[in-house]
């Protein structure tokens, strides 16, 4: 989609927000199903290609390779899951803040740097 705000930054941010929302959903499902027989803990995993891009600090589309998979540790530990959820919630809000700041830059450009 080509529009005024279709910059790589917005694309990457919105994809990253998708992944962050998916992570929140997976943590929630793990907590809700904790202790249920035959339930296997789930987690969000990324394709090898995305991992490499992240390590090389390239801009990539993070959601393109995100999958929900069975976790290696099968049982849910409530305290650990809560800690991970808190961490990912902060990440989500960091992305929202990055989005706000990018909008701020655009607005500054629109107003040609003037206040108000």
């Amino acid at each position, binding site marked *: 989609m080509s529009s005024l705000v279709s910059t790589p930054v917005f694309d990457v941010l919105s994809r990253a*927000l*998708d*992944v962050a*929302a*998916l992570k*929140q*959903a*997976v*943590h*929630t*499902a793990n*907590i*809700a*199903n*904790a*202790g*249920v*027989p*035959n*339930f296997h803990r*789930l987690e*969000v995993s990324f394709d090898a290609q995305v991992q490499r891009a992240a390590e090389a600090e390239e801009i990539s589309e993070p*959601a393109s*390779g*995100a*999958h*929900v*998979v*069975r976790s290696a540790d099968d049982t849910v530990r*409530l305290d650990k*899951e*809560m800690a991970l*959820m*808190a961490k990912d*919630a902060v990440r*989500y*809000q960091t992305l*929202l803040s990055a*989005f*706000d700041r990018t*909008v*701020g830059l655009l*607005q500054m450009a629109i107003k040609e740097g003037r206040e108000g």
Partner: protein
Amino acid sequence: MGMFGILDISAAGMDVQQARLEAAAANLANAQTTGQGGAVYQPLTVIVHSILGKNALGSVDSLSADSLPRPAVSGTAQLDVPPRLVYDPGHPDADSRGFVTMPGVDPIASMLDLISISRNYEANLRAFDVTRTLMQRTLDMGNHR
């Protein structure tokens, strides 16, 4: 992917803990009841299953919160535990040898259950709260200047 479905998962989790709480409370409340003519209160347990969505293990594009597993109570069952025999010859329900039949409720196991239920319920409530906060912040996106 919609975020409203995530709240439903937490609600399902709290629902299950509520059912477990009812069973544990009933077991503790009936622990000291006596049986008349051999019929005695049978301790209850709640059967919980995870309902798996169609494509629970998919990619972010094909996935919605509705396809993630959520817990559901599939029924209550009576625990197959032998009743306790308490010697109380003066009791109206005592048998010919002076024993009164009481349910085989394990009070310690029931108390441990209550702790687990309470912790699970709180965790679900917390997850609900975090999701709600994130949704609210998303709505406020771009309103900070």
